[in-house]
């Protein structure tokens, strides 16, 4: 863009300084990957790739480590939180863009942004002191009473509701990611051309039919990108779940059991790792998490870019 301009030595210096500064992002990503791989090389050679990912054994005493319990915990809490957060987030977006009177739009938008700004440690602490007792006293016994006798689903609601379990962690996680889903869905909904909506109204569609058949199909790429982005966020969330998940390296079937996610294991055990192979396995776990979230976020970004270029046409 700046070709043909007067060149001064200062210009060259400024150009190189800014170029170096922007390349730090690339250097950081490559650096993280390199450091994590080299730190976990001990565990990689000892446990391999497939074996590490499929072994449920996490035993510091026997120095045998496998990631499956952690990955299972991460996957389960993430999926459960998305089950709650996605419908609510999309519902909020529909409310803000289509239903809400104008004077409510601003405040609700701000409220969603504030919900996103609260640090995760506050969510975690609030979950431990406030939500967890509520869950164990009221909500979980209630769910148990209804579902425990039902075949198949009943498996999810076995055991003593303690409040420190997968369900509580997923609820907190879902509250944390609702703002991401909601704000990206809202932005995508807002991009639907008014003309298209008005034509649907003109042929007699109700408001819900316009949302269901015009707005959502039109903006599905963006909404999907937002959901995947929320998924990536939920995968890597640490402090919000560290308080209420316990640290239980077992594959459990009940939502009332404690579990361990990749992040919680790292947070709880990293500073306590006393042998090289233990620390190396934790680095391996961090590498797996980095790879998982990077890929998820890249997919999200791909859909968001695709959505963007579709709308700007």
């Amino acid at each position, binding site marked *: *863009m*700046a070709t043909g301009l007067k*060149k001064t030595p*200062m*210009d060259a210096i*400024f*150009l190189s300084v*800014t*170029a170096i*500064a*922007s*390349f*730090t*992002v*690339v250097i*950081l*990503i490559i650096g993280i990957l390199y*450091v*994590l791989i080299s*730190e976990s090389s001990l565990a990689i050679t000892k446990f391999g790739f497939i074996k590490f990912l499929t072994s449920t054994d996490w035993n510091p005493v026997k120095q045998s480590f496998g990631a499956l319990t952690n990955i299972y915990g991460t996957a389960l809490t993430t999926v459960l939180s998305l089950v709650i957060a996605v*419908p609510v987030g999309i*519902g*909020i977006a*529909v*409310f803000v863009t289509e*239903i809400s009177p104008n004077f409510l739009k601003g405040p*609700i938008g701000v*409220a969603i942004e*504030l919900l996103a*700004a609260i640090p*995760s*440690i*506050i*969510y975690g602490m*609030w979950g*431990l*002191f*406030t939500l967890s007792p509520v869950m164990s006293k009221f909500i979980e016994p209630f769910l148990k009473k209804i579902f425990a006798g039902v075949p198949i689903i009943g498996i999810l609601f076995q055991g003593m509701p303690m409040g420190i379990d997968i369900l509580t962690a997923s609820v907190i996680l879902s*509250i944390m990611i*609702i*703002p991401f889903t909601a704000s990206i869905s809202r932005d995508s909904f807002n991009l639907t051309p008014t003309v298209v909506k008005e034509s649907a109204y003109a042929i007699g569609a*109700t408001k*819900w*039919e316009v949302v269901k058949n015009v707005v959502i199909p039109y903006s599905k790429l963006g909404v999907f990108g937002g959901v995947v982005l929320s998924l990536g*966020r939920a995968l890597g*969330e*640490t402090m919000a779940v*560290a308080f209420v998940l316990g640290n239980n390296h077992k594959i459990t079937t009940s939502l009332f059991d404690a579990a361990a996610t990749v*992040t919680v294991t*790292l*947070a709880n055990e*990293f500073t306590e790792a006393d042998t090289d192979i233990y620390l190396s396995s*934790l*680095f391996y776990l961090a590498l797996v*998490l*980095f790879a998982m*979230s*990077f890929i998820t*976020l890249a997919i999200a*970004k791909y859909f968001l870019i695709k959505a963007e270029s579709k709308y700007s046409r």
Partner: protein
Amino acid sequence: MTREQRRKTEGFIALLLCTMAAFFGLFWLVYILGDVLYHGIEALTPSLFMSDPVPPGVEGGGLRNAFVGQILITVFAILIGVPVGVLGGTFLAEYARGRKIARLISVLSDIMVSVPSIVIGTFIYAIMVKPVGHFNGWAGAVALAVIMIPVVLRTTEDMLSLVPWTLREAAFALGAPYYKVIVQIVYRAAATGILTGILLSIARVAGETAPLLFTSFNNSFFSLNMQQSMASLTVTIFQYAMGPYHTWHVQAWAAAFTITLFILILTILGRLIIKWRYR
């Protein structure tokens, strides 16, 4: 029921559910903030800011070490992260504008913004704590800076892109070299936007806990030495809330209240500036 009635009922129920979703979201915000406010205010005493922690069981004591540590770590993170972020954003929006490389770095930064912060903690542990042999405040500051850089970089890029190209051409026409145009014209035009981005990035890192767990760790004593382990509010909240003592829990609520208030004020301030500047 006729077909029209069914469509109307279906629409009514669906819109009602959406409205309920909105109030569901609001409900949690009010619940969490109300709870932090309620528990935090009653624990807020002058000694919280003025005195250092005492052994559990002894009355009184405060979190002066954690407040000071948090401020030191955050300030150094800002001093490292903001210049790199702003300069990097400048490259993308000015020198590399429209090039493939700018697009690539921009997308990578967007991904970096959401990379789990605990992974960054382990990364900094490996390069800054392990070689030295002990936790240190610098590692904490660098970890926060790493989180900050992509955030500042992206907002700077966006804000500089909003400055009309004709403004630059006017300056070029006067014979100004590009770096002077950027520093004296473009930066000034985008100053409020960049400042807002910086404010929001501070709000983002001030509440980070996971990257500090393995870097600056914690310290029960007052310390200004960045070469040693250093207390921070967030790690203290984690330790105190998980601990068994009631006095610890009370102080954790007070710390949570202070940090939430700080972050919400920064966030609201940032939004207000954007609204006021770019309406």
